[in-house]
């Protein structure tokens, strides 16, 4: 072997790695700055347009701006803008970890049937007035959506505990769930009154206009509570991407890690979907963007997934307000339209092999 390597040249890798890590931290900071800018623009746009300066004044010098500006920014636009951030981040992290533990680039809350289950739950409330959990009838739609989303996620979770069930089986089960719930949803839509049908269609398109401060807090709380669970397992989760055998040989308890992650991810995906409806694209593509930007070391990949998902949905929120003046288009419709061109640029512009 190379016995000629001198001590002076042996640590070149170390220096190179430090530079690589710094570059990734810089990228994360850049994403965070872009997210802040996007949120500010999101809050500036609306029926009454404000300048970014006015929004910043309302944010940081609230007592020095007019009551109207303060109320519009803090009470009307901020919940929606922050809902975009928390929902985008939650769905993206959920997608990232689903892709990690299932070793499948197509895994996301949408493709595993969690969103479809939520839609069916919501439609049950909107069409049949049927509450799955007989609590808080005023919140029947999100509670139904949440209950069905969790049921689908737990079904996937328990299926994955069965002996002999592989990650490929899980993905196929998820796809079967998508078809099942879509069929049930179509059946409900067929039977629905015109008014209920409109409500179901609107719900399934996904919309941030349903955002309120309590919903923002709940989504943010779940996100803040789950991220440290993933962060603590950062090395182990990254190792999973080298293959099951390799991770096990590194001392990772693959089965236990996969089950715990699936359970956490279920909660992370079910909450936002039940509040804002079906927003499919972000949970699939947010993680891919993060992966292309910083690779799959979870110490960078996890925060990058949070930021990419949040940024993607926040930018979408801005676009949804600007396409048709005076109208806010449903965000679920716009997400893919905004995300796909950006995604194409990353795919074709990057030399990095992403899956």
């Amino acid at each position: 072997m190379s016995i000629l390597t001198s001590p002076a040249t042996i640590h070149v890798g170390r220096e190179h790695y430090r530079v690589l890590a710094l570059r990734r931290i810089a990228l994360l900071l850049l994403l965070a700055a872009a997210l802040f800018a996007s949120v500010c623009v999101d809050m500036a746009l609306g029926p009454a347009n404000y300048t970014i300066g006015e929004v910043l004044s309302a944010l940081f010098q609230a007592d020095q701006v007019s009551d109207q500006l303060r109320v519009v920014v803090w009470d009307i636009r901020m919940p929606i803008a922050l809902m975009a951030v928390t929902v985008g981040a939650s769905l993206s992290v959920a997608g990232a970890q689903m892709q990690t533990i299932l070793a499948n680039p197509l895994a996301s809350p949408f493709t595993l049937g969690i969103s479809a289950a939520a839609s069916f739950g919501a439609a049950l409330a909107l069409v049949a007035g049927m509450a799955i959990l007989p609590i808080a009838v005023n919140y029947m739609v999100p509670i139904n959506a949440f209950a069905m989303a969790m049921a689908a996620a737990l079904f996937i979770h328990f299926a994955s505990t069965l002996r002999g069930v592989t990650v490929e089986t899980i993905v196929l089960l998820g796809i079967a769930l998508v078809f099942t719930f879509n069929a049930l949803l179509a059946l409900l839509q067929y039977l629905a009154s015109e008014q209920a049908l409109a409500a179901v269609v609107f719900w399934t398109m996904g919309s941030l206009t349903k955002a309120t401060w309590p919903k923002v807090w709940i989504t943010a709380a779940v996100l803040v509570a789950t991220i440290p669970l993933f962060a603590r397992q950062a090395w182990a989760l990254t190792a999973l991407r080298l293959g099951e055998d390799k991770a096990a040989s590194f001392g990772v308890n693959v089965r236990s890690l996969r089950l715990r992650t699936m359970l956490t991810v279920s909660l992370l995906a079910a909450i936002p979907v039940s509040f804002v409806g079906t927003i499919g694209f972000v949970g699939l593509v947010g993680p891919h963007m993060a992966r292309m930007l910083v690779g799959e070391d979870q110490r960078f990949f996890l925060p990058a997934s949070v930021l990419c998902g949040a940024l993607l949905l926040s930018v979408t929120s801005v676009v949804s307000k600007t396409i048709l003046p005076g109208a806010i288009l449903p965000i679920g419709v716009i997400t893919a339209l905004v995300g796909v061109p950006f995604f194409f640029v990353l795919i074709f512009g990057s030399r990095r092999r992403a899956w």
Partner: protein
Amino acid sequence: MVALALQDVGAAYGKRPIVSGITTELLQGGSLTALIGPNAAGKSTLFKRIAGLLSGPGTVHLTNATSGKDAIRYMPQDTGGNAVLTVYESVLLAAKQGSGWRVSDQELAGIDEILAALDIKALAFRELGELSGGQRQLVAIAQALVRKPEVLLMDEPTSALDLYRQIEVLAFMQRRARSAGMAVLIALHDLNHALRYCDHTIVVADGRMQASGPTAEVITPQMLREIYRVEARVERCSRGRPVLIVDSTAA
């Protein structure tokens, strides 16, 4: 120095036993042991059982190990996985399992040292997906060594390597085992490699141990006929090294 011995060790997937009744002499640190046998003999299963990744009957005796059950490390045959990671990160990942986020200069120096020793520094910042099968195998060896095993179980580590690299890796492992006092078990198909580099050889077929002992005593025409179904001889080359010559398949 660490020493490993197996006593009546077996392993099963579900209720289906794959290996059983494996007993070996004491395999000392500093030595290389070949694990040989036909395809599907149970070699990988036995390695996983020794590493504690599978449960089963029998006892794996480990003496003088300083790092407890972490002393034994398994290097799987599968070098797959399509993670978007550089070689350097993938080796760092192996070193950092179970520890915090912060990476010390000393830890990075350890990675530089392993990559230099395996002569793959040029690959350090290439992505895993860009590597050839042989390059991936060298990275897998780096990932295994960076964890500083006292007993290393290598599952066909040279199967994708060219001839030069095969010789280089086995000679390197021999030196490394001697200098670090590490016991290395290597699953091999090339019996000439076993003859040249391995002090001991264990033969497994149909999930049962067929022979175990010094390599020269284990690799015999009779064993090759019974286990591998070939007519073969072990002769000395002009430099005095034992060489396996296969004449034909056995009748």
